[in-house]
């Protein structure tokens, strides 16, 4: 009897292990293993062909070369601005979907937010280039309307990068916001209004505190996606984009300096972790509550 019971327990554990195996394999093989290898790479220096020594040279060169950490800070700042803009644009959209639209209308609006994702990111970004380049659609319209005398180049500005990043991120902000706004009881808003509240004070005292986990979740996802985005800043910002992922790409592919690229990768990981942690601290949210909203 005891033997069969032990056998059954062993069998259950085997089933559990098999069920978890694909996820664990993916986690280990594609995330942990490459990162361990990158960690080793980032802490060594090439002294002669095929000869390496352990050193902090890669990290030292990051802080020693102003271009590197300027780009690093610029990427973080632009990502934060893009996240904030996405939140400001997504909030009214989410409010309409969650509170104002009824039934099919609400589903339709969701689909409208989703449609851009039916096209690949490259094609989507190239679409922006067609619209914004000097000989493109928007500058032609501006000339036609007499707003500008000459077609203006709308590509390769920081604002252009932001437009592209916000456009790409919108859905990832709208989804958690809709979730958290839908769970807000309408009678709370009515009660606040009844007690003398106005639009702004109700938003500040009732809506935002209720939606805080959803707002934080959306911001974390959008910030991480933006910080790690390569295609949009590179295509829309051109040579001026100075996005940190581009620096990593250059080190790995153009300069073939894997050690430096690995160090940059780790710095980016540290940056996103630090900013997410800071965001949670400032908004007073717990990571587990927030992750349930994503």
């Amino acid at each position: 009897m005891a033997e069969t019971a032990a056998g059954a327990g062993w069998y259950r554990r085997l089933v559990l292990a098999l069920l978890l195996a694909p996820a664990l394999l993916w986690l280990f093989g594609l995330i942990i293993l490459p990162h361990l290898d990158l960690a080793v790479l980032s802490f060594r220096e090439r002294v002669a062909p095929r000869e390496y020594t352990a050193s902090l040279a890669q990290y030292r060169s990051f802080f020693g070369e102003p271009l590197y950490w300027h780009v690093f800070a610029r990427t973080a700042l632009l990502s934060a601005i893009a996240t904030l803009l996405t939140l400001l644009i997504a909030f009214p959209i989410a409010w309409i979907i969650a509170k104002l639209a009824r039934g099919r209308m609400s589903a339709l609006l969701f689909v409208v937010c989703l449609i851009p994702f039916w096209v690949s990111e490259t094609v989507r970004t190239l679409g922006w280039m067609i619209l914004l380049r000097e000989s493109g659609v928007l500058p032609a319209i501006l000339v036609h309307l007499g707003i500008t005398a000459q077609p203006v180049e709308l590509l390769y500005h920081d604002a252009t990068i932001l437009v592209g990043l916000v456009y790409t991120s919108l859905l990832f902000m709208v989804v958690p916001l809709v979730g958290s706004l839908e769970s807000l009881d309408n009678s709370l808003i009515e009660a606040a209004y009844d007690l003398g509240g106005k639009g702004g004070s109700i938003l500040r005292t009732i809506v935002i505190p209720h939606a805080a986990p959803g707002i934080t979740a959306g911001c974390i996802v959008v910030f991480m996606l933006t910080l790690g985005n390569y295609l949009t800043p590179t295509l829309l910002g051109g040579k001026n984009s100075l996005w940190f992922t581009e620096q990593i790409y250059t080190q790995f592919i153009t300069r073939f300096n894997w050690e430096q690229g690995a160090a940059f990768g780790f710095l980016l990981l540290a940056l996103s972790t630090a900013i997410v942690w800071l965001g949670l601290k400032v908004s007073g949210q717990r990571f587990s509550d927030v992750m349930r909203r994503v």
Partner: protein
Amino acid sequence: MSTGLPPAAAPDLEISAVTKRFAAHVAVNEVSFSVARGSFFSILGPSGCGKTTLLRMIAGFIQPDGGTIAIGGRDMASVPPNKRPVNMVFQHLALFPMMSVGENVAFGLARRGVARAERTRRAEAMLERVGLAGAAGKRTDELSGGQRQRVAIARSMVLEPTLLLLDEPLGALDLKLREHMKVELKQLQSAFGTTFVYITHDQSEALVLSDRVGVMNQGRFEQLGSPQELYYSPATSFVAGFVGANNRVPGTVLGQDGALVELDAGGGLRLRARSKGILARGAAADAFIRPEAMTLARSAAELPPGQNALSGEVTDMLFDGANSVVLLRELQSRRELRIALPQTGAFADLSSGARISFGFDPERAICFPGAHG
């Protein structure tokens, strides 16, 4: 319909010919009434009768299609809810879960720009008045159902509204707590002296709490009066059937002698009942007889003279302490009736199948025009 209040007191709420339509459906149809200062007014009706729509129009969440609403003598057309001297206790209370009890109560004061120290003091004083001294720091989900209700009332009362609207606040509570909160609401209302407008589908709540009740059905007021008036002299068959327990006996009018109508209730059963209007001979009519208006007797001879004397066969005894009733089938019409058992316990020994006589004073039965059925 006297209110018993001095005529000098202007009504706090005056509704005249208010109408609201949703597409083809008329939710509230030309309703008019006024509520005297300091009184407890209830709007009683089944779900879907339009009472919630009416309340939301008073609060300002819905604009009426026609008619006027005046609060404290001031016309409320185009005054938004946050500017009306009216506060509302919501059906599920709608306490703000992101705030403490004290912050909930101080919410309205903060919106009026009262300084922090002052609003904390006033919120705490108000909590003390509703028996929740020291609860200001608690979270709302730490309170019991009854305490939450008191917070909801305190949150509104701290703003000293002319009118407090209550949207079935007892609906979500369990029976025992509901009975308790009924008494508490009544006491709070008389302590504050504020005018309460209360909507409910529970006739017992309306009867116990109110000074005056409006019975609403299909968007209209069927009757407006004191609980006693509604109970003892209902104006329509709907009110007779909806307010309090009642036996409905349908029949055909045989004749009328003054206020008394003689009715053929089927199977050769003849009844006499009071009627306000003139009923034509041969018209359909419904007689309503309260369970406690009927007296039981071992034999027809024991019944007082002048009463309708009937006999029946007991189908069930429903023992419920002071509210015990006997269900019986009248022998001629085969209609089932419900009769209150006397408090003396005299007929406690009845059992199913027993034959018994019963009767009622025709003055205590009331007759309305009805449909055959």
